[in-house]
């Protein structure tokens, strides 16, 4: 009823290319942003630390994987490895560069670039190897990175336990917190930083999708030989996709370690996490930025909600093993069912809903 194109007149070409062409969408987006920036930081520390920030971190990694797999068609199982590069990169930049030169946002950015470069190195075989054969390259990245940080204790500042807690002074932001009188280590501040990064990078990704580069990526995905015949440099497109994707994953790793758990721990970047992020991508829908976020929310929240149901309805009948197994079963069923029924994942379901709303009450 209110979701109508009526009255939305496009009067110039610039308006024709807007991300949200409808007035209703614009209002919803602005209200949503106000909600995210003004209301969510005032909710409880627990809600921010256990739900919102981790979703922002893994969702960003999903967006990164989406650029590589969904957009460019290069399968990757090394997501967690690239996140690991980002986390360790951020830590070492903060630790070893003098404080007056380095601050967390800068470190995140630089370690993202570093992760991107590592991604390019492991993406080099993609020039010659195609399809499933490429899995071996990304798995090599995953295992090599993990082993590398495990073997060279320098990167963990010789911490024997393998986990290093992040010192409070790293949340200094050049004294910004003191200046404003805000606790920058507190969860609201952490949340706002990750939110700004995630919204900025999602916006960039969304525009990448609509740009010349994004269309090059998609043509490589759809048929690389045809793309090269049309004059698109396939190696360049693939390597650029690796760089951008791994940049996202690196930043996501930095956010995960610094803004969510507050320590740098190798164990959370094992190959399992690569798979979890792949699930998020498939369930959310390949090639859609909003889908990546929906998938991340679903996959991250399901075990929590399921435990909660167990606690309240069945008096804590589900132990962690049951929750994990049932979650895995549900992810599996969702992946298969969505692939059969709706290959576009949650994003396609959402698009269908919007289309239906636009047409309502007419069927077509």
């Amino acid at each position, binding site marked *: 009823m209110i979701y109508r194109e009526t009255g939305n007149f496009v009067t110039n070409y610039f308006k024709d290319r807007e991300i949200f062409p409808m007035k209703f969408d614009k209002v919803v987006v602005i209200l949503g942003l106000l909600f995210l920036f003004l209301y969510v930081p005032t909710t409880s520390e627990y809600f921010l630390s256990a739900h919102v920030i981790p979703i922002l971190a893994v969702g960003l990694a999903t967006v990164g994987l989406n650029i590589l797999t969904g957009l460019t*068609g290069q*399968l990757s199982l090394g997501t967690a490895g690239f996140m690991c590069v980002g986390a360790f990169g951020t830590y070492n930049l903060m630790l070893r560069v003098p404080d007056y030169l380095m601050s967390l946002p800068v470190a995140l950015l630089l370690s993202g670039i570093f992760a991107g470069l590592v991604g390019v190195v492991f993406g080099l*075989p993609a020039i*010659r*190897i*195609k*399809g*499933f*054969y490429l*899995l*071996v*390259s990304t*798995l*090599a990245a995953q*295992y*090599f990175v*993990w*082993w590398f940080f*495990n*073997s*060279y204790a320098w990167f963990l500042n010789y911490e024997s336990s393998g986990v290093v807690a992040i010192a409070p002074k790293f949340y200094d932001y050049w004294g910004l917190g003191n200046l404003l009188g805000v606790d920058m280590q507190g969860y609201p501040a952490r949340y706002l930083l990750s939110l700004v990064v995630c919204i900025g990078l999602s916006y960039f990704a969304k525009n990448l999708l609509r740009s010349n580069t994004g269309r090059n990526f998609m043509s490589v995905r759809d*048929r690389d*030989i*045809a793309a090269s*015949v049309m004059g698109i440099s396939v190696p360049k497109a693939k390597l650029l996709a690796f760089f951008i994707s791994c940049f996202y994953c690196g930043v996501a790793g930095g956010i995960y370690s610094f803004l969510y758990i507050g320590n740098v721990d190798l164990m959370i970047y094992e*190959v399992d996490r690569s*798979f979890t992020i*792949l*699930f998020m991508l*498939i369930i959310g829908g390949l090639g859609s930025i909003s889908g990546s976020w929906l998938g991340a929310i679903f996959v991250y929240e399901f075990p929590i909600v399921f435990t909660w149901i167990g606690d309240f309805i069945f008096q804590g009948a589900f132990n962690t*093993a*049951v929750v*994990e*197994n*049932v*979650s*895995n*079963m*549900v*992810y*599996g*069923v*969702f*992946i*298969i069912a969505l*692939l*059969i029924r709706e*290959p576009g994942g949650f994003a396609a379901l959402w698009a269908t809903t919007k289309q239906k709303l636009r047409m309502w009450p007419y069927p077509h």
Partner: protein
Amino acid sequence: MDWVYLIEVLVGGLMSGVMYSLVAIGFVLIYKSSGIFNFAQGTMLLFASLTFVKMTENGIDFWTALFIAAGIMVVFGVVTERYVIRPLANQDLLALFMATVGLATFQEGFSQFIWDSDVHGLQMSKFLDIGLLDPAPIFMSDHIPWLDILIPKFDIFASLVAGSLIVVLAFFFQKTKTGLSLRAVSDDHMAAMAVGIPLQTVWAVVWAVTGIIALVAGLLWAERVSVSFTLIEAVMKALPVILIGGLTSIPGAIVGGLVIGVGEKLGEIYLADVFGGQGIELWFAYFMALMFLVFRPQGMFGEKLIERV
């Protein structure tokens, strides 16, 4: 250089290579017949061996348990074909791959949900009176005086099983009518359907056979390592194996397994110092496969791809 030590390392590598090959065969079988990269191979191993072990632990005797487990794997294969693969026929291969990732996830949860997540040991010598299952190793010095190495009898048993599997499968693929239709299907789904090959039946057969291979491989892995979710990682190790061998070649799976097995052991011993750390076994296999693929992108015995727009 210590030659005896080198031989011991080589033998050890060959034996672990055989174990990788066992997993790889199942992969290749499905890829060859349907072009599907079956990521669920590792969880099939887990499901099969866990089902078997739980039954024997509950007092069912060896052969009955083996029979029932094989039956369950066949049913599972047929159900998979009916409800996962068939609706996705003629989809692009990435979608089918992701479906098997979903299948693997489901199966990982399912097998540990209905049984349990504990680590189970398996000792087949308790059930079977075969000399080769005796835990005592063979002392080679008894036979060849200067060769002072140990060979576990079980490894020989595993190699024999793998070898006979290859022979049976090679016969099946090359000489039987089903094998011929399998090869046709792997070439082109549509064309095979057009000439009247019953795609569904063929795939159901393949998935059932793969289930049984997974049971055999699972039992051997269980005896050598144990039954737990770490069996799923067998699939990760089998990846470089099939990629080196070529996705479509069963002999390739064997050769690839042996190359990876030996290369990994030699790498760990002679190259670990170069990289300044232990445990390069973790990633060395992938690098070997990568180096190999850069020079021969279709693997050792894989069919050379001719691509058209």
